[in-house]
């Protein structure tokens, strides 16, 4: 594909992101006329205060969260697939999400017993994000440590799944010991949602994702060479240990922060990089990283719109939608990579 074609693709993707973002704000369980929506966003006086609140305090933060979550999870998945040189790597499959769940479950247990409501408000946010991040990073570091001992990528992947199962088991035990109120909070968190995020939390999520994303963009050159494996990378002058650490920090920040605020979101991180590679026909991260970011935003917004079930006043858990779209992509990857 030529540079001109890339530019055309990027322009089209960016346009779709903007379009889907506006649609995501427009569509919801409460029907709000689009001219009222326009009035709200152009700061003109609006008679219906409820509509204004819905738009400004619910739909807008939700759409921003969906956008950033999509970007973060997809770029995180891309980095992991390159680092582990495994097409099936991603935040969900490698157990990073489970680790984050473990962290949140621990916070839940502590809050159950100490009487502090840690799962709400800005202090809660930082507590939950911290716990989810610590849990996610712990699993990622474990995987990384194992990967230095075991070179076989399939083994690492299976170990990731096992770490995930293990942390899920501990989460189960913790759930057993916590009270009904907090348990309900945790279960709702674990079903995944872009809608439970308030402005204060957006103000935490957006800077974290932005910083991690900048690291990811800067690492594009290293990621390219790491496609050939660590020995080749080293022979071309890459400081492999430092690069690996930066990638892990970036991918961990992206996956863990989104999981903390939105709950575990399935398949986006795994599926989007593959769709982008196929659509852009390249393995060059200087193109893949920004393209994956755009497509991640696009698909997360699309899933959020679908989850609203436009025309009805019901909403689906976001995980149900991402899985319905993501699972076929994974099947397609497996069939495509089959060796004859």
């Amino acid at each position, binding site marked *: 594909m030529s540079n001109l074609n890339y530019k055309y693709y990027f322009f089209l993707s960016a346009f779709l992101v903007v379009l889907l973002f506006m649609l995501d704000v427009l569509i919801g369980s409460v029907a709000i006329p689009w001219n009222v929506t326009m009035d709200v966003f152009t700061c003109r006086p609006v008679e219906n205060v409820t509509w204004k609140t819905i738009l400004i305090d619910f739909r807008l933060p939700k759409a921003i969260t969906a956008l950033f979550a999509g970007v973060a999870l997809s770029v995180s998945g891309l980095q992991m697939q390159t680092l582990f*040189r495994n*097409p099936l790597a991603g935040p969900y499959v490698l157990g990073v999400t489970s680790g984050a769940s473990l962290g949140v479950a621990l916070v839940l247990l502590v809050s159950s017993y100490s009487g502090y409501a840690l799962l709400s408000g800005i202090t809660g946010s930082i507590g939950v994000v911290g716990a989810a991040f610590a849990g996610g990073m712990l699993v990622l570091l474990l995987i990384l440590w194992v990967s230095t001992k075991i070179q076989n990528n399939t083994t690492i992947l299976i170990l990731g799944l096992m770490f995930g199962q293990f942390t899920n088991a501990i989460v189960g035990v913790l759930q057993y010991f916590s009270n009904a109120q907090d348990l309900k909070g945790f279960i709702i968190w674990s079903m995944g949602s872009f809608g439970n995020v308030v402005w204060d939390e957006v103000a935490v999520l957006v800077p974290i994702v932005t910083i991690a994303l900048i690291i990811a963009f*800067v690492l*594009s*050159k290293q990621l*390219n*060479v790491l*496609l*050939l*494996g660590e*020995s*080749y990378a*080293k*022979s*071309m*002058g*890459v*400081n492999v240990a430092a690069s690996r650490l930066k990638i892990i920090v970036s991918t961990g920040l992206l996956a863990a922060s989104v999981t903390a605020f939105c709950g575990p979101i399935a398949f986006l991180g795994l599926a989007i990089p*593959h769709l982008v*590679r*196929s659509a852009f*026909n*390249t*393995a*060059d991260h*200087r193109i893949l990283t920004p393209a994956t970011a755009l497509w991640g935003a696009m698909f997360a917004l699309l899933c959020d719109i679908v989850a609203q079930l436009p025309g009805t006043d019901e909403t689906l858990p976001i995980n149900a939608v991402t899985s319905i779209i993501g699972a076929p992509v994974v099947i397609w990857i497996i069939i495509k*990579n089959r060796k004859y």
Partner: protein
Amino acid sequence: MDNNKKQEILVESPEKNLELTNLSIGYATGRKNVTVLSSVNASLYKGELVSMLGPNGAGKSTLIKTITGILPPLFGDIKISGRSLNSISAKDLAAKISIVLTDRVEADMLTAETLVSFGRYSYVGWTGRLNQEDYKVIEEAIEITGIQKLRKNFVSRLSDGEKQKVMIARAVAQQTPIMILDEPTAFLDLPNKIMIMRLLKRLARDFSKTILISTHDLELALQTVDKAWLISADKRFFEGTLQELAVNGSIQKAFPQVEFDQNSGKFIFSV
């Protein structure tokens, strides 16, 4: 200071690209060092194609890993263009030695051309943007290795022989005086083995590269290379031209199935 400089100049020979002095190689397991090979003394010169021969487990891979800086040496000295290996930064080393390994590259949607361009990694800035000079070098590497028709193909779809040529092109694009290849002809059929050996021979002769390969293909190596490093089953290291190694009986000792015919000057394989 001045004395040191003089010494550097004396040690540095324009022809000698690699020098191993009293080198011991091996690896650490726990607190113990396992020595694989010791007292290795050898040199590689500009324009030489040298084959490292030896039975499985003799330490060929360990020696390659040590020379390329992946494993630290247990004892002794490695000099690259007159400079001690441990004083060379990773970036500078990338301008001295390029490698082709047996590791399989299976990245999805990676074109041959893009893979070759990765050879320019240490020359470009952090954005990875290639300039005119880089494109020229990549173009030359593609031409020299004869992969013009493969350039837009995905590496994952190439045959083993084609893949090997692309990996060699990447090493050429890295523009290093020394190229080291681990088993470049393994897993290839005979026509491809011959094609790769001819390509390497041409790179050494026409482009003044120092090329070291490890190989099991004794017959092919004996017909192609100028010089050999020989590791015998009893872990002894020999260096010399094929003639020298044949006359002093080292080759026959390491490979009992080979005989050297003094009259024709050729190696005979007893079946």
